[in-house]
């Protein structure tokens, strides 16, 4: 729920462009030694008699442990007039349990070197903390109490609603969030994934009964997967898990509601008078992670806009200087995903920026990358994969992704191999198949008076004029 800049600021985030000139007589970089093998850290899985799943991952040498209770409850479970009810429920879960006050929960967690966060996403709620290793079992017990026995006190609801109204207002004063909101609505007009923000009236209408009903409908052992990663005593920890969760009798099956995203071109321009930059989102629904094209699509994305040296970034940042941190991403939901390129570009080059983005999409669709460019991206993704699986939270994220999408353990075992098997022709083919220029949703937030003429060609789905 962080709204503002991260702590490490003034970081150069992205850089790129083409080598301008290769001079003779330059040294070539030393190649380095043979690669060392990497194996995804092994994990132990088991299911409690009540159906709750548990995964333990011994990892690392820092004496800390991360405990994450992941529940299949999120914004997906909200009704049309219940936007952020999942978030309010998450906020209230931090306000004490049937046997511990909120302050006691906070102090106990802090006394173990932890801090409990309850974060709510489209598909899941994560109740998480890390702790010094010696407190692993107690942290499991504390998070179990927060998950199973929240008090959901009525007394705190008005304050949390007020906080939510403030957060929403501040969020929506930031152009990027306005763009996200419009983009989601264009993609998912009739689905909870398309409703990123409530109205103030909606938030104010929520009663404690709404919250308690939401909790009762959406929390239970069958929807829950506990992940523990780090350094811990496996016997003591396993016992703590059994003790803390085996009595949780509440049980509800996950709700399955895979959206049918709206296809076709759409364009939306939101006026932000005086804006020195325009925020642009260009994207569309694509394949989900269970599709066999998914890994080739990820390779294509990394090459097109998803990495430092990608083509779009090279073009509009390092060549043209239009923007600071453009990037494309594949954003996944349960059995669903969309692709989007987003950038904050200087106002007077809003149209030219869109032009270059489409130019790079078209170029990739019509011209397979060179072997060297593809190999570079494959090596990059192979290296990133090691990093993604080399921290406690990273490991949990990876395992949770596999679990949510039902990909099976072999997904992680074979990922690197599959990335490296993708051909240049496949890269162009998946771009052509999924990134159809005339089908893109285009959202722009900026100074309308200055940019309306620039973005005019993109108002229609006639991609020939882009």
């Amino acid at each position, binding site marked *: 729920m962080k709204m503002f*800049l991260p*702590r*490490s600021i*003034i970081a*150069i985030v992205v*850089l*790129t*462009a*083409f*080598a*301008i000139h*290769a001079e003779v007589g330059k040294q*070539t970089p030393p*190649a*380095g030694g*043979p*690669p*060392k093998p*990497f194996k995804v850290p092994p994990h132990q899985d088991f299911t409690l008699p009540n159906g709750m799943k548990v995964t333990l991952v011994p990892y*690392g*040498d*820092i*004496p*800390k442990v991360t405990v994450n209770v992941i529940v299949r409850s999120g914004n997906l479970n909200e009704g049309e007039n219940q936007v952020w009810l999942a978030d309010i429920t998450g906020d209230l879960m931090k306000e004490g349990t049937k046997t511990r006050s909120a*302050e006691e*929960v*906070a*102090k106990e*967690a*802090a*006394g173990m*070197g932890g801090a*409990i966060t309850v974060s709510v996403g489209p598909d899941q709620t994560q109740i998480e903390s890390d*702790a*010094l290793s010696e407190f692993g079992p107690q942290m499991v017990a504390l998070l179990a109490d927060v998950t199973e026995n929240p008090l959901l006190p009525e007394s705190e609801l008005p304050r949390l609603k*007020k*906080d939510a109204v*403030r957060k929403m207002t*501040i969020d929506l*004063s930031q*152009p990027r969030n306005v763009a996200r909101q419009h983009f989601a609505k264009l993609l998912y007009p009739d689905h909870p994934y398309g409703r990123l923000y409530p*109205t103030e009236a*909606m938030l104010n209408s929520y009663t404690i009964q709404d919250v308690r009903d939401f909790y009762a409908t959406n929390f239970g052992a069958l929807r829950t997967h506990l992940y523990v990663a780090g350094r811990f005593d496996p016997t003591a920890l396993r016992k703590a898990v059994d003790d803390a969760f085996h009595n949780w009798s509440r049980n509800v099956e996950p709700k399955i509601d895979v959206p049918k995203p709206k296809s076709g071109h759409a364009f939306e321009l939101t006026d932000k008078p005086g804006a020195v*930059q325009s925020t642009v989102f260009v994207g569309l629904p694509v394949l989900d992670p269970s599709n066999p094209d998914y890994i080739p699509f990820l390779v294509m994305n990394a090459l097109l806009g998803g*990495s*430092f*040296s990608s083509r779009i970034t*090279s073009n509009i940042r390092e*060549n043209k200087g239009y923007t*600071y941190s453009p990037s494309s991403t594949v954003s996944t939901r349960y059995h669903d995903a969309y692709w989007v390129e987003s950038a904050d*570009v*200087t106002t007077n080059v809003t149209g030219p920026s869109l032009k270059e983005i489409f130019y790079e999409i078209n170029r990739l669709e019509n011209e397979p990358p060179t072997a060297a460019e593809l190999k*570079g991206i494959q*090596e*990059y993704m*192979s*290296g990133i994969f*090691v*990093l993604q699986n080399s*921290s406690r939270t990273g490991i949990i994220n990876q395992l949770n992704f596999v679990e949510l999408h039902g990909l099976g353990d072999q997904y992680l075992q074979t990922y690197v191999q599959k990335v490296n098997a993708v051909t240049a022709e496949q890269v162009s083919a998946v771009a052509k198949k999924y990134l159809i220029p005339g089908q893109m949703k285009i959202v722009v937030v900026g100074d309308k008076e200055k940019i309306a003429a620039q973005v005019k060609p993109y108002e229609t789905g006639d991609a020939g004029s882009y």
Partner: protein
Amino acid sequence: MALLFAISVSAQQKGPAAFHVPVEYYKLPNGLRVALSIDHTAPTVTVAVYYHIGFRIEPKDRTGFAHLFEHMMFQGSANLGKMEFIRLVQRNGGVLNGSTRFDFTNYFEVVPSNKLETMLWAEADRMHGLAVTQDNLTNQQGVVSNEVKVNVLNRPYGGFPWLDMPQYANTNWYNAHNFYGDLHDIEAATLQDVQTFFQEYYTPDNAALAIVGDFDPVEAKAFVLRYFGPIPPTKRPPLPDISEPVQDQEKKASKVDPQAQRPALAFAYHMPKRNTPEYYAMGLLDQVLLQGDDSLLHQELVTKRGYTAEVEGGINLLGNMYDYDGPMLWIVDLYHDQNITPDGIMQAANSVIDSVRNKPLDQSTVDRALVKLRSSLYSEIENFFGFGRADLLASFALFDDDPARINTLEAQFRKITPETIQKTAQDYLRPTNRTVLTVETKPVATDNKGQ
């Protein structure tokens, strides 16, 4: 060549054994400080080069120049043209970044461990010298201007409080100017400025190299000598006086932010000098007062009063309490509604701060603060793979000539008594050492009633 090995300085009398970071430290004849730390957890290695030049001491008519210069370090060196450095890291399976802070500018890569030599070669290549053109500079002036726009100008609360507060709370220009830079100054920079800055500050005797991860130290030291050894040191200009006078009167400032829909408030106190007992005491006070839901300010302002959803801040918002070397602020910030006045918030905050000034903390509160501190120190050490560890080692090499300090921090905090904490609170958390900054919305605020 001095060779120091880390000595375990574990003064822990109670609790589990402290985590020990292996540290090997030495200097090359050209003055480059080298810190090595082995960690075989994953087959990766982090290479971090820290130059002892931050944004504090950039040229006076070139605000934002240290940061612009950081961008230029990616624009080409003798053997790597524009973009080639980045491509080299990526095609070897790595990630990279650079950042400009108060007292250093850093560059780092995290790569598969077999690529250590490749990265040392590349970092040495740009320490040898830059090969950049006017086109490269013009391009990065555009990129940096866009960075300032996206992070400061085209958003509400841009620069609040991390960029704003030092400008209000400090009086010495070196601590009180706009570190991100006026767009005008950024655009005025010339290639000559770039070359001069490089020659003056980007020299081996003004830098530290940290290598963290899965590597063979004998091999690593041979690479370091081979690639960095030949780089000659050069003469640096004398350092300006960056000290801050003692503040003896409370300061208040406010700014109107036309993009903001809700007011915000921050307050800051000048920190005690780094590495003194009072400094460590402030680290504990930060934990007691500000960090986590159990903290006194959270309990008072969030839970009890409902003034805000979150109280944020800390020591050195652009890093952590360890990686700076000069005057510093402890900053607290929050966002609130129009119907709560800044005075009301400060009154509530004062009640909490006075409580730690008026009587010593009880032992259980101190113990909890120590646990939180230990946990947060481990989080810094493990932050972003090997980078967090490299950050502390390189900082301690540059600022203290002693990266093995990383293993003494816990003991330093443990030595602090409740009396020292109280005395520190009395001396430093006094209103006369404070600056209060408020962000006001436009006089007629437009409420967001939905979509």
